[in-house]
């Protein structure tokens, strides 16, 4: 065996081990969700998947407000995605293509907003939502999640790269700023729009803490918050909780499998911007 081959094998083994470490929590959630509550806490529960019992799923589907939470998650995540993209795109267009006083300052403020950790704003945002009477309202969940500077920055970079002549051709053809944005800049950036839509949607879907603060009524909860509701009188119901967690993750996993390339692209681009 040559040294190169040995190195390759060692590298492959390392990657495999890393992948197993990454996948294990998901595997463990799946194994747990397929066992009875009693078995989970007994000594006989090993690492191997030796039991397939769908009781936890049946229980969760029949007793929890899963459908409601799904609807809430879908509603809020789609609204957040739509608004974030629309406004992010328009803001980026203005910063990239229009000349107005304070443009650079505005852009610096948006870039600077990266420096502020989101949790630092929770108290202020909670007070604001409370003052606006939006606790336990969908808009209370949605509004604070609309601040996504990375969308503006990524769009601006892509808009900056579009040749000036194309813009001028549209102006000569009789188009205005809206024509430019929606018939030229947006169609030329469908790829990045799709990528940004996916990461915005996934991050809104997975967001736990903010909806957990704002939605205290079971009817207003999103799926990640709903998971915390699955207890019984004897304490935490692990199988049901894991079943619910997997059901909550299912749409995101599905989206990832379908749009794998775009998601990777989006993560790379936003990571590049966040530096």
């Amino acid at each position, binding site marked *: 065996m040559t040294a190169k081959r040995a190195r390759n094998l060692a590298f492959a083994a390392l990657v495999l081990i890393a992948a197993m470490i990454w996948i294990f929590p998901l595997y463990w959630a799946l194994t747990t969700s397929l066992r009875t509550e009693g078995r989970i806490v007994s000594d006989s529960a090993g690492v191997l998947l030796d039991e397939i019992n769908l009781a936890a799923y049946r229980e969760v589907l029949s007793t929890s407000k899963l459908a409601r939470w799904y609807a809430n998650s879908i509603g809020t995540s789609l609204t957040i995605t739509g608004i974030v993209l629309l406004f992010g795109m328009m803001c980026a267009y203005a910063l990239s293509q229009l000349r107005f006083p304070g443009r650079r300052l505005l852009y610096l403020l948006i870039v600077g907003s990266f420096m502020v950790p989101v949790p630092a704003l929770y108290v202020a945002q909670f007070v604001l939502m409370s003052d606006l009477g939006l606790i336990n309202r969908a808009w209370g969940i949605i509004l604070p999640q609309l601040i996504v500077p990375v969308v503006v920055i990524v769009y601006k970079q892509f808009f900056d790269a579009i040749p000036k002549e194309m813009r001028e051709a549209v102006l000569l*053809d009789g188009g205005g700023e809206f024509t430019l944005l929606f018939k030229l800049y947006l169609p030329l950036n469908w790829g990045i729009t799709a990528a940004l839509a996916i990461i915005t949607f996934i991050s809104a879907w997975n967001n736990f803490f903010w909806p957990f603060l704002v939605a205290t009524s079971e009817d207003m909860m999103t799926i990640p918050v709903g998971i915390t509701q699955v207890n019984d009188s004897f304490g935490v119901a692990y199988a049901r909780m894991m079943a619910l967690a997997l059901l909550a993750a299912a749409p995101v996993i599905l989206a990832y499998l379908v749009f794998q390339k775009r998601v990777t692209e989006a993560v790379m681009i936003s990571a590049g911007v966040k530096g």
Partner: protein
Amino acid sequence: MTATGVHLEGVTKSFGAVDVIGGVDMQIGKGEFAVFVGPSGCGKSTLLRMIAGLEDTTSGSIHIGARDVTHEDPAKREVAMVFQSYALYPHLSVFENMAFSLRLARRPRKEVEEKVNRAAGILQLTDHLHKKPAQLSGGQRQRVAIGRAIVRAPEVFLFDEPLSNLDAELRVQMRLELARLHKALGTTMIYVTHDQVEAMTLADKIFVLKSGMVQQAGAPLDLYDDPVNRFVAGFIGSPGMNFLEATVSAHDTDGIRARPKGQPDLDLSVPITSRPAIDSAISLGMRPEHLTLTDGPGLQVTVDVAEELGGISYQYGALQDGSPVIFQQVGARHGLRGTVQNLLPEPGRIFAFDAGGQRVR
């Protein structure tokens, strides 16, 4: 105010303290093919963009037909522009690229189809209407850009170095096509180029620009035969005019006699009516085709490079003092490289310029 073509009066353009266009007056007749030509940075593209409305005009006025369009939006000026980079919309098909302006104007579907198909027919693009710009060759893309301009039926076509991105062969072909198109449409066209061959072959009227000022305007051959200054004389014509520094040695009935620097035995007859002072310095301009070989006394040129083009050849050399000289030979087959030749300009074919570069007549 004339109601035809394009008329510019006292047009200036400044970027901050820098004046890029300094007081341009021009008149382009309806249906004329005008060419702005000049070296890089002379302001020719800026001037075209000002006519298009893509750049603000600092002062002065621009009229298209009878309308003052100085402060109109680009779309309302009834001009169409063809860009050097084509500026096609990459996400749209050829058809949709050409139909874009009509769709924005919400023209009926039938009219859009009719106009696009007619333009495609003129430009031989009918078989490519469904393709995306990326699937086309450079020449085809340029045709689509022209087609996009045609469907708008503008009063004025503006071309900003449209052939610069094409290879030499295609450039010649497209040049011919543009000339035919102009003949077929009869619309006013303004064309910007730094290539004086394009200017000479396409233009009804050439505007030579330098540092934001029109140096001379006129028919191509008028500019060639009768340049007003040394810049125009040197810019129009390829290869360029030869310039020799000289001093006025005598006055005679046909003009003056001038002695080129470093040639004490040679007095050239310069046919001008003015009489610059004896011993004053002037520049002499001679076109390569007006220099002929002589066995007698003449400009002694050592030839170092010869460009043999078949029918004609260009011989590149230098005088003893190092001044470069180019001369043309027709049908010659004997190589002159490395030889010393005596040259004399054809009588009456010498231009004279003063120290400021202005023509002395």
